Every structure is written in C-alpha cells, then in structure tokens.
C-alpha cells in the first residue's frame, strides 16, 4: 500500500501524534517487539509516557495501515522466548514521515528559539 504513496500522500499524515512519533523513533533504531517498544518509550521519556497494550497495538495497527511500519519476517535467534513475539520494522516511508515530522518540529523549535522563549528555567 505504501509503495504507491506519493510524497503529497505522506505529507497528509503529518503531523504525527506524539505516540506515533515515539514508536517510529524507537523503531528507527532497529526492530523491536511490542514490549521492547514500550520499554524503550518509557526510558526515552523518563517514564512520562507509559503505553498500555491496547493503545500500543492500536498505534501499531494504524501505522501499519498507513505503511509506515511492517511486521519483520525474521526473528533474532538469541532468545528463544523472543522467537514467539512479533517484531516490527520501520519502512522507508516511515523513515520519511518521521524525518518530515522531526523537521516540522525543528522548524517550530527554531521559531521559539528565535523569540528567545527557550530559557534554562523553562
């Protein structure tokens, strides 16, 4: 589905929801299973974002529907337990959307900085 998406199609998906952004960001580092994603997000946000299973899979399904991530075919062999789990991988389109959203946010941050609103005590 995603292979047919044009650049303008991808732009329609912006802005990403914070949770969608975080999931794509975690997967940009490599394949993860569901619990791995939850743990990574918890660590990255210092525990301020704690995904529950229902919400996580709703986000994963939505991102897969949009072609931003896919289920990985291969499994790491090191951990037998991990072989049963589904792994997820970010797609090229996902990387593009992630980058585009990050650029959008960067632009916004720059605008804030230019107005000297980002102070140390903020």
């Amino acid at each position: 589905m995603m292979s047919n998406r044009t650049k303008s199609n991808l732009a329609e998906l912006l802005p990403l929801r914070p949770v969608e952004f975080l999931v794509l960001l975690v997967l940009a580092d490599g394949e993860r299973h569901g619990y791995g994603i939850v743990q990574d997000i918890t660590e990255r946000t210092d525990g301020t974002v704690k995904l529950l299973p229902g919400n996580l899979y709703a986000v994963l399904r939505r991102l897969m529907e949009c072609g931003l991530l896919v289920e990985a075919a291969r499994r790491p062999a090191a951990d037998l337990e991990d072989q049963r789990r589904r792994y997820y991988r970010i797609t090229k389109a996902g990387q593009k959307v992630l980058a585009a959203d990050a650029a959008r946010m960067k632009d916004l941050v720059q605008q804030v900085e230019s107005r000297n609103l980002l102070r140390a005590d903020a």
Partner: protein
Amino acid sequence: MTRQTPRSPRVSAGETLYRLLLFCYPADVRKSTALDMLEIFRDMCSMERRRSGAIGVALFTIRACAEVPGKAIQSHWGRRSVVRANAPQRNSIPSRHKFGLDAAFMDIRFALRSLRKRPLFTIVAICTLGLGIGSATAMFSVVDGVLLRQLPYREPGRLVTAWIGYPSRGEYVNFTDDQYRLWRQNSTLFQDVAIYNANAWGHGTLTGSGRPERVSLGTATASLLPVLGVESSIGRWFSPDEEGTEPGGAAPVVVISHEFRSRAFGDERDVLGRTIELDGIKRAVIGVLPEGFRLRWLTKSPLGTREIVGKELWLPFGQSHDCIGCGSSMYQAVGRLRPNVTVEQAVAETATVLESTAFFDDMTVRLVPRHEDENRGLGQPLVLLLAATGLLLAIACGNIATLSLGELRGRRTELATRSALGASNSRVVRQLLTESLLLGIVSSGVGVLLAKTGTKGLLLLAPPVPRIDQVGVSGTALAFAVALGFFAGVLFGTAPSILAARDSIGSALRASGCTGTGRNRHFQNSVLVLEVAFTAVLLVTGGLLTRSLSGLLGVEPGFNPENMATAHVSLPEVRYPTQVSQTLFVTEVIRELKAIPGVQAVTAANNLPFPGTTAGWGVRDEEADPNLPRQSGKLFHVMPGYHEMMGIRLLDGRTFTEEDHLEAPSVALVGEEFARRLWPDGSPIGRRLVYPWTTVTVVGVVADVRRETLGSSPEPVFYVPFSQFTRSDVSFAVRTSGDAALVLPQIREAIWSVDGDLAITQSGTMASLVARSASDERYRTLLMSLFGVLASALAAVGVFGVTARAVAHRTREMGIRMALGASDTGMVTTILRGSIVTGLIGIGVGIFGALWLSSGLSDLLFEIEPSDPVTYVAVACVLLALCVFSSYLPARRIARVDPVEVLRAE
C-alpha cells in the same frame, strides 16, 4: 504463551479478565494481535510487581482492562472507515481538543444538540428508561431500608435469637424462665443474655385520664437493653432488683416508648417520676426508649399477617401474667456473643447448659443472627420483586438499543460525512456513547422522581413489615439510580455504536441509508428475543402468584365470615377478679348486643379466628402414660352457641349448652385435627382430657377452622365453655342481617354501656379481617402483575418498532415484488412471519427460563405447582397474540405501497 513464570493470584485473575476482554476486538484483529497483547500484559505485570508490588499490579490491571473496550470499539470502527483513512485533515485537530475536558464539553454540547433535533426519540428513550430506572430504584429503596440497613443496635452482628428445638416433633419453642436463668448463669461464650415477652396479645388498659385506652405492653428482664446495646433516651431502663421472683412481684415501674411519651405527655420534658395507671395499678415512669425502638416478633396481627412489635410500655419481668417457674416456653430469648465467638460454638455450649431442662431427648438449640431473624420471610419476596424490576429495566434497555440502532441507521450519512470531514473514529464512537450516557443520566433523574412517587405508593400498599416506616429514597438509592442510568447508557449505547461502526460508511454514502445489514437485523432480533423472554418470565411469575392468591382467597375458612362484626376487650383483673364477675360481664354485653336492631345472633370467645392467636397447651388422654409426650393443642374459651353462630360444623357428639355452667361437670369440644392426633383409632366422645390444671370430658368433635391465615394448615384445637373456664380476654362476634360495618359504632356503645372504662380493639368486620390476612400475598401479586403488564407494553413497543423498521427498509423490495405480481396478503404474511418467529423463539426461551427459575417460587405459592401448565400456556398465548398484534399494525402498511412510485424512485 506457555511461559511458566510464577505469578501472584491477582495477576492470574487479572490475566483471565484481560483475556476475556480481548474478545471485544474484531475476530481478525484478535487473531493477529491478542496473543502479543496478552504477552505484553504479562510482561508489564511482572515489571509493575518488581517496581510497586501487588498494588502496582492491581492498578496496572485496572488501567489495562479499562482501556480495552474503547480501543475495541475504535477497532471495529476503524476497520471499515475507508473514507477516514484518506481524510486530508486527519491529524490536524490540536491534541488539547481531542482529549480532556474540552473534548468532553464539546461532546456533551453536540450530544445535546443532536438529541434536541430528535425530540420524539429523546422523549421516548427518557420515558422508557426513566420508568425502568424509577421502578428499580423504588424497589431498591424498600430492599435497602428493610433488608440491607443495619439494625439499630450496637454491633448487631453479635446478636443472636435463641430457640429450643425438638426436631423429631418439628417444633421450635421459646425459653422458659428457668432455662433463661440456667443459661445466664452458666454461659461463658455470651457477653449477656436476656428474655422478653412481647407477644401480640400483650396489652393493658390505661385508665385514670379520660377515655380508657388500650396500650400494647411487653415485659423484659433488666438485661434486655444492655444486650441489645440500646440506651434510654431519657431516664433509665430497669435494674435487676426491680424484677420479680414471683408473679406480680416486680416493682411498679414502667419504661415508655418515645411515641407513647409524645402521645401521652406531648412536649413535656419532665416525664420521669410521673405515674400512669395501668390495669388499675399505678406505675412510675423511670425511662423513655429512643425513637423508633421496636423488637420484631413474627406473629399474626388482627390487621395484617405480621405485626411489628413496637410496644408502647415495658414492664420489668415478674408481672402477674408472667409465668414464673411454671415451665411455659413463653419468652423470646436474645443473646450477645462475646467477640470472636462463632454461632456454632455458642450452640454447642448452650445445648450442654440446657440439657437438663429438655422436655424430650432430641433437644437442640437454634441460634439465628438477629438480622436474619428480624428479616425472616421478607428476603425472598423482596429480592424477587427487585429482580423483576431488574428485568423490566433490561427490557427498557433492549427497547432503546433497537431504537438507537434504527436512529443510527438513519444517521449513517451524517456519521459518514463527519468522518469524511476529519472526525477520527474514536471521536465519533465517543460522541455516540456520550449521547447514550447523557440519555442514561437524564433518565436516572426522571427515574429518581418516579422512584420518590413510586416508593410512596409501595409504602401505601405495603403490608406491615419491619422498618417500612423508615424507607425512603436515600443517598444509597440515589447513587443506585445514577449507576443504573450510567449502566443503562453504556448497555444500550455500546452495541448500536459498534454495529453502526461496522457498517460501511462508504456504502452508506452511496446508498443513502436505504438498506439494512443482516448483522443489524440479527442484533435487533436477538434483543427482541430477550425482551419477549424476560416478559414471559415476569408474566409467568405474576400469573403463578395470581393463581396462587386466587386459590388462597377461595379457601373455605371453616366458618361463615359474612355479615359478622367483631370487637375485643380485656378485663382488668383488679375490677374483674373472679370467674363469676367475668361471666356476668360477658352475659350482660351479649344481652345489650342482641338488643341492637339488625343483630341476629351474638357470641363470645377469648379469641376469634383471624388472627386466632391463643396459647397452646400440652394435653393428654387421662388413661395415657403420663410420661409420654403430650399433644400440643390450642385452647379456646367459648360461650354456648358459639359453634352454631360461627357456622362451624359439628361432626360428632354435641356442642356446649347453657347447662355447661360453673357447677356442672367440666366438658370440652375438640377439633377434627386434634381428635385425629390424640385418638387416631377411636371416638373421642366420653374420653377424659388432662391439661395442666384440670381434667375435662370430651362431649363433641367439630370441624377444623383456618385461624391465622387462609393458607395455614388446620391446627389441633380444643374448646372449653367460657362459663366454666373464663378468661380476661373477650372477643364478641355479632351476626347481622345486613352490612356488619354499619353496627360497629352501636357495638362499641353497647360494650361501654356495661363498662365505660374498657378499651375496645379489633373492632371491624370478619370479612375484612379474612381478606387482610392475605395482604402479603396480595401485595407481591399486585406488584408482580404490574411489572408483567409494564414489561408486556414495552415488549409490544419493541416488536412494533422493529417490525416498522423492517417494513421501512423492505419497501423497495416489496414494491418490486408487487410489481411482479405478489399479493398484498402474501407481502403482509412475509413481514409477519419474521416477527412471529422471533416472538416464538423469545416465548420458548422465556418459558424455559421461567420453568428453571420458578422452582424458587414454591415457598410463595399456595396449592399450585411452580410448573403449573395452565399459567405457562396462558402466558405463551398472550405473548404470541401480543407479537402478532404489534407486528400486524406496521406490517399492514406494506399493502399500501405503490409499486409504480417505488420503481420510479429507483
């Protein structure tokens, strides 16, 4: 999924719940992700356990489980909303509008607008749900006030009521005073024990201030109030030295009820030390009981089947009527267990302590928690009625669910457009649920208003039950109503939202909402089946109770209650100390009564049937072994001609005559049941009957009479002539030629013409007393029938609505069929067939369910089986007729369809 990690029981239970909740997801989503979600759930539980222990796991489980239904609904919606996926502004709404209070207020505002645009639907939904919630809340208020509220005693959980039982004889009796003393001295597991005598016939006459007044009174030991944990509101309760050790030996003091104080002394604060004259004896008031204090004693009262004993005056144990050392089991016993003592331990100890006082070898002790004892006989009927209102509410929810589905079908275009314009799935689903919840909450407000009126109605009709005067729509009942509204909103809102979500919005836009889906029809039919089934259950229950009541009221009482008036007096021993003076009074009153115009016959007895409560005695044949168990029999003192006047049949021998006077040989008549038990093989005529203080010769056998209720079995009774054995309690029965109620004032005047200082009670017609004896049965039958009728009306509306929608959605199909030559009748039959099949399935399910549930009704039914085929067949026929009628009305519209118009519209 088979990982064997140790888990706490809380996690296992949470896992099970979570696993069940996952079934809310669509099947394909469940297959693809449920195992993973469960695995993550377990991992996160383990993590929470490491971090925060069991509490963390519990909190996480609650959060995770609460999240599933909403996500599942989104999932149902999202699978079909193709339009949404391409929405250009999908994520453009700022997040503060998607979540939080802003969004909630937006939803509520939109829901209000949406509901205002559909006033008919809104009014119907609120009225229907309000009716369901109102009836359930009113019934809950009664159950809460009577059954659930704690008794007004300190630590009521430690209070028990005690009986002595002889299982082989099927008898449970109260305590004798000797047993009480033995129990109190030797028991180690009770903090204290007490006895009291609060029988229904405990009354006295208050004189000395104007018109004599009959007041209820009880006697009790000094330990009663400390055992109950109740304190006098003014003054004090009795002290042990005020009790008497022989009849009449108690101190002349009295403790009065709050209600009596208000009535007798008004606002006067200083009532302590005041004297009142009771049965000719002056007694000093030493204390006032707290407001509402009453001890329940299950009995039959003249004005109903059960009396709540709120005695007005309490006297210390040791009054002249107290049976001290005579071995009479006339005292109700109550004990307070020590902390951490179980009822079983107390039973064992009490049985050992009282072993030496046993009348028979198989003596047992029965201790029942006070709460259970005071609510005896009430739980089942009240819970039955509450369950009935629950079914009524479920039917109302079913109606609104099918109605909502029809509405949503009509709104598919609106919903699809909103989705296409950028509303997310969750937003639309949340919006629909907000509308449902809003309806539910508003309905609960209407329900509360109805419940306030309904509770008043319930109390007005209710037979006397304990604490009924304290029943009202309390805070608990209000919370119950709001919870019901919320629950109802979710119940009827969720399923239609999911089903609406499942419909393709794209197809909705194309088809303009003209077609229904098979899944929706299936849902509607399922709801309809349940509605009809619940209605069948209610109608069967109401039908069984109605037939039972009808059978009960058709019972021959064994005497003729028509055109009979009654009045009762108690003769004070001070003024009527001898048999002669008592007999003289009765004879004079009878003469005065006979002089009243329209009076045909008059008689008197110590007590008349309904209530027919009187003392029971152990009696035996003179020739029988004195060591053998005695036969218990109830004794009635009656005037000559009593049986003829009452219309009680003589079966053998003779009745009493004027010749059976004080100097004549002592004689007795026995009832049929009494004769059967004592002399199963021979005639009782001429046999000598021994009872505690004398021996009498049996001169006749009379037919048995229903005495307490029409449903009660005939008891063994025997009669002695009033002239030979007088009593201070006298009931007069007057047979009139016309309406007995008209002579009641004259009866009172006639009695007062003989003695103006007597209080008259139980003044009424015998027919009304007989009818009121079935007040419990009449009450529950009336309510259950009312619920059945309401359920039928709701079910009929449900069938009507579903059929009407089926007609509307099949108009095009029917138009084409008609164009092809199908007849009107065939068309109507096709529509009717669907409704009738649904109705038949519902009736089948309901009849089966009622058969299964009705076994629990057997205690409430009189001479009718819970599986009574007549009731079931009648209910099935009524419901079938209802289904046919309510589906025929909309179905006949199909015959008016113009095929040309339909085809032109295509």
